[in-house]
């Protein structure tokens, strides 16, 4: 197969509430890097309804071309329909690689496209680099204690699901063009019928952009004690995070989940309260600038990654911290 004709990088930018999701724009920087090596272009694809502003944003964030597909039929995400659209765009553009953001829907869309296009797909990609002319993707194994470098040079396009928060948004302002495409929803391969979309959790939690995150784990003991985590987060102007056990115990809703199966975060300050530090959680906070951990078990693995580790029961430590930080803030 002559690979040289495949140069472009297609980046599927998902939108939420008519705006590009964070990882959508983040992907443009590794996409640009690879496109430059290949001598191709970065072509972002946005599918939805009334998302012109989002397309504009993508065009200003590092895409050479934004392919905008709008139709009321695409207002909500429908796996089969979106896969059809992406398939037809990809077949036309003939890209070298397709990047999809690691959101829940992105994780479904990518392998579906891979199966249809008979190509490979890498998941949860934390890094993209070029080695010996090959594009190398770094993915976690076993919750992140082991990393794996993979290549997909035997098929095109190579599809990669990029992890949210793993790439820094590009600062350069290339002014890309917007190409509107009219791709009507085909009846072919439409197997799902979305009967209802229910929003049970109304709060919006932006862990990915947070500067400060205060998280609680099972060590908080109860829903009542978990309030301490919220208090400290409020005091620091931060966002509340949680581990899976805390969520499963019903102390807080799952939009607060931090870790491999929740959100990958990179705040300036991360405070882990009553969190032992399971790999799945730790791998999601490793990019934090400063980690403070409070745990009563002095051997808790969380201390291995913490800048400051407080050995003690978070339920006793937190109230003192809250009071002391209050004092210091007032003194300022």
């Amino acid at each position, binding site marked *: 197969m002559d690979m040289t004709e495949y140069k472009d990088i297609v980046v599927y930018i998902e939108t939420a509430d008519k705006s590009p999701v964070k990882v959508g724009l983040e992907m443009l920087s590794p996409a640009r890097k690879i496109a430059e090596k290949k001598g191709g272009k970065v072509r972002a694809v946005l599918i939805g309804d009334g998302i012109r502003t989002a397309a504009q944003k993508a065009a200003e964030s590092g895409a050479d071309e934004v392919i905008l597909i709008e139709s009321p039929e695409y207002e909500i995400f429908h*796996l089969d329909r979106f896969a059809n659209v992406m398939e037809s765009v990809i077949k036309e553009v003939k890209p070298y690689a397709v990047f999809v953001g690691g959101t829940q829907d992105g*994780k*479904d869309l*990518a*392998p579906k496209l*891979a*199966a*249809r296009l*008979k190509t*490979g*797909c890498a*998941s*949860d990609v934390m890094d993209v680099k070029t080695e010996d002319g090959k594009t*190398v993707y770094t*993915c976690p*194994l*076993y*919750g992140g*204690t*082991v*990393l*794996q*470098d*993979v290549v*997909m040079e035997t098929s095109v396009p190579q599809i990669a699901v990029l992890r949210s928060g793993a790439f820094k948004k590009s600062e350069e302002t290339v002014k890309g063009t917007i190409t509107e495409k009219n791709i009507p929803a085909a009846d072919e391969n439409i*197997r*799902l*019928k*979305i009967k209802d*979309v*229910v*929003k*049970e*959790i*109304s709060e919006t939690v932006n862990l990915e952009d947070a500067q*400060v995150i205060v998280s609680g784990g099972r060590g908080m003991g109860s829903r009542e004690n978990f309030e301490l985590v919220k208090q400290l987060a409020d005091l*620091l102007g931060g966002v509340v995070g949680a581990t899976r056990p805390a969520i*499963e115990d019903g102390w807080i809703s799952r*939009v607060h989940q931090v870790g491999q199966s929740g959100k990958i975060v990179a705040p300036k*300050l991360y405070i882990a309260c009553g969190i032992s530090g399971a790999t*799945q959680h730790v791998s999601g906070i*490793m990019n934090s600038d*400063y*980690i*403070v951990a409070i745990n009563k078990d*002095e051997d808790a693995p969380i201390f291995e990654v*913490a*800048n*400051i*580790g*407080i*050995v*003690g*029961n978070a339920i*006793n*430590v937190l109230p*003192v911290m809250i009071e*002391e*930080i209050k004092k210091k*803030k007032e003194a300022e």
Partner: protein
Amino acid sequence: MEILVCIKQVPDDSVEVHLTEEGKPDLANITPVVNAFDTYALEMAARLKEAGEGEITALCIGGEEARNSLKNCLAVGADHAYLVQEDRFDGSDSRGISHILMCAAKKIEEDTGKKFDLIFCGKEATDAALGQVGAELSEMLGTGVITNVIEVEFAEGQVCAKQETEEGYRLIETASPCVLTVTKPDYDPRYPTIKNKMAARKKPIGTIKAQDLSVLEPEKTGEGGAFVKTLKLYEPPKKEAGIKIQEETAQDSALKAVAMMADAKVF
């Protein structure tokens, strides 16, 4: 109602995996278990079966040691179990695995003369966490796929499932057969009862070899057939541990920590 549940045997995910000196995952002392999401899938399937009727077949690709995982499935709801045991399938990527599962499902259907109405998978495995097989398998079977399922109903050839989303759920309908990938529902998988476990030990586990698979395209399988090729495995650089504070009282520890945080200007 005929249900297929695809399971994967993985190392116990509560144990940290590191690399050996040769750079291979050191799994020697880690108990192999059924992937947690697959156990949720099996439990969901078992509840569906118990509410109606039908049979559950568990299917696994793996070595001899995976029989134990299948035996455990037979003790908690599966009626039949098959192991695809073929060395040359080792190193298959998601496409390869999905292809083998598709071929094995067809083979079981041929043998029993019954078609699967529902095919369950876990939403991902706890080791590689790719989450690709459900979607790939559905494309190969030409069926719909509903992912991240937390609840499912099945009646008259129609499947209606709740797909968990970040903010709530989507109610999605599709015709059977279809593929469902399961995430953690409200309930936990059951423990095997003593008698079911004893009975499961006596149930046969069918062995499927490459030659049994009539629609197999061997070039899609194994390391050679993988689109995704591993260059190397390595451990991430360890973050250096910082300072541990353990004063006489929680009060003292907290004060010291806050002082240090203030010095570091993190708030």
